[in-house]
């Protein structure tokens, strides 16, 4: 039987299809304003891409901030459980997950069977989320996807002391005014964001091996900063954006 997971995040909508232990395919598209439309579209595009039809799918689980909008899903589950299940599906040895998405970041501890044992999420604040990096990329006039590589070339990373996104932005602007090198400012930004995420991991005393998921895992500067903070290597999810959707499909397959 084939199962589907749909993850409606703040920036992107993701879908995944699995059959037993095989991943049949995944798809990502921008969420936009309409959650249900995005969910329907990403799911149907994925069916088309894999040559399947709706009747081939046994059950659907929706997750993410827009999970309640997906009225054709059989069940809605939180992204915490889904990221845990997704990481376990991709690599059963994983004991910790760090997910940094558009509007939140979380650390998840898994038990020996891959079940969620504990979790911590960022508080009502964008520091240490994808949004934080977006705001900074904008202030620095750098494309978001180039930020990571640029930060890695820093020779003397700047120090960002504010933990609030708005204050950090003005701090960055004053650094620009002082003509600090862009690559150094970026490295400082990555470190500030990584510090916030590392606190979440410490809160729940996460165990290794740790998988990093979420769109921000595509930023090599950020993952390097996090590895330094955590003092251990991270396994970057091969489907970092779709891990939650994959997990949702896994949970859909369970009775």
């Amino acid at each position, binding site marked *: 039987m084939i199962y589907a997971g749909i993850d409606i995040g703040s920036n992107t909508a993701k879908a995944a299809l699995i059959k037993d232990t095989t991943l049949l395919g995944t798809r990502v598209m921008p969420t936009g304003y309409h959650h249900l439309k995005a969910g329907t579209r990403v799911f149907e595009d994925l069916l088309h891409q894999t040559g399947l039809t709706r009747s081939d799918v046994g059950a659907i689980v929706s997750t993410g*901030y827009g999970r309640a909008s997906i009225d054709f899903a059989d069940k809605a*589950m*939180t*992204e*915490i*459980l889904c990221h845990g299940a997704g990481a376990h599906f991709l690599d059963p040895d994983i004991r910790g997950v760090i997910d940094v998405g558009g509007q*939140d970041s979380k650390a998840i501890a898994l038990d020996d069977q891959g*079940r*969620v*044992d*504990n*979790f*911590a*999420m960022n*508080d*009502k604040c964008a520091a240490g989320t994808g949004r934080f990096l977006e705001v900074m990329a904008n202030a620095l006039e750098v494309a978001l996807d180039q930020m990571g590589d640029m930060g890695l070339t820093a020779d003397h990373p700047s120090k960002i002391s504010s933990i609030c996104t708005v204050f950090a932005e003005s701090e960055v602007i004053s650094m620009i005014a002082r003509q600090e090198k862009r690559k150094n400012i970026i490295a400082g930004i990555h470190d500030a964001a990584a510090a916030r995420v590392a606190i979440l991991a410490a*809160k729940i*005393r996460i165990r290794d091996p740790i998988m990093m998921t979420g769109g921000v895992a595509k930023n090599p500067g950020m993952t390097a900063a996090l590895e330094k903070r955590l003092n251990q290597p991270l396994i970057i999810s091969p489907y970092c954006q779709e891990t939650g959707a994959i997990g949702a499909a896994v949970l859909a397959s369970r009775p």
Partner: protein
Amino acid sequence: MPDNPVAPPKIKAAKKMRDLMTTYYLEALGAPENNRLVAWITSGGPVEPLVAMDIIPVYPENHGAMIGSAKMGEDLCAKAEDMGYSGDLCSYARSDIACAVVKGGPIGGLPRPDMLICCNNICGTVLKWYEIQARFFQVPLFIFDTPVCHTGYSSEIAAYVTAQVHEYVAFLEQVTGKKMDPDKMNEVGRLSYEGQRLWQQVLNTTAHKPSPMSAFDAFFFLALIVTLRGTQIAVDFYKDLIDELAQRVKDGIGVVPNETFRLLWDNLPVWHRLKWLSDRFSAHQACLVADTYTSAWCGALKYIDENNFLDSMAEAYTRIYLNIGVDQMAEEVLEMVRFYDVDGLVMHSNRSCKPYSFGQMDIMQIVREKTGIPVLMIEADMVDPRSFSESQIETRIEAFMEIVRLKAGRK
């Protein structure tokens, strides 16, 4: 999951309590006409000498809770910020300071105080807060200083606090121009002890499965042991409440339909979201059966000598939950986990209440290590709704309940 199972009958005593609270506030508001004095006092403060001297005690913190429940906290907190107070200041303090000026809130402001009694066993913020109000109202202030008992109650602390009990009585005698009647003081002390003992009994009823009431009910019924401690009114009311709860237990009435999971709450309530939170947990058949907050008004019973209240009061008011070390706090939480047989702990990291929220991470780890139950931490504020993110907290509760369900199933 069933969204709207049959709601259990409401606890009848609630109406009686509302009436008693109304009478209490009317009496306090009418104090000047009846030649009576009003003292504002901190929630954990030694109120019995006031009652014995026929002074009406009024609690800015209880008022803060009313402001929060009435969802009037945002405007009053913003007003205090307009006046120049930091948004990081406790929201009880902010709303009280603003309310004194604008006479806002659900009852149009508290009656004007004739004196202020500030006991710092609950926090350090009250010192500055009461100093501000003493200047604003131009009234005398008595500070009852209770050192934090990190490891125990030393002889130095005992001597220091006991000396203040005598100074306190002298202060009241000077302000009122009357002598304290020792017999009256003993009588009030006995009633206070009895009220606290009964309040503990009320809370104990929730050890029954299903629980006849929840922590949300306790947050409500708490008002009398805070405001009318040391009176016959509180004693009579709690006796009736215990009878009603005992009947509910006998009839097998649970406050959460199909109670499946039992949870413990830590820290003050989120006053402006009581119903919302209660509904979220009930939807998962989870009942918050107990909390660390309401038991603060009976937690020091063991230190009270009911026949010599005044002398034993020093220790009882010093060794309350918020004035002891984190290790001891964790011990009390562990005892509650066992006594109420809970499946999870929900901690409210309260932006306002620093002494309550500081140490929660350690307590969380200790509880997880010693009991294995899941612990949820939610960030909010007891009165100020601007520190509350509904969708984030909803997601956390859902994920937490998924884990609770998983773990409880494993038992």
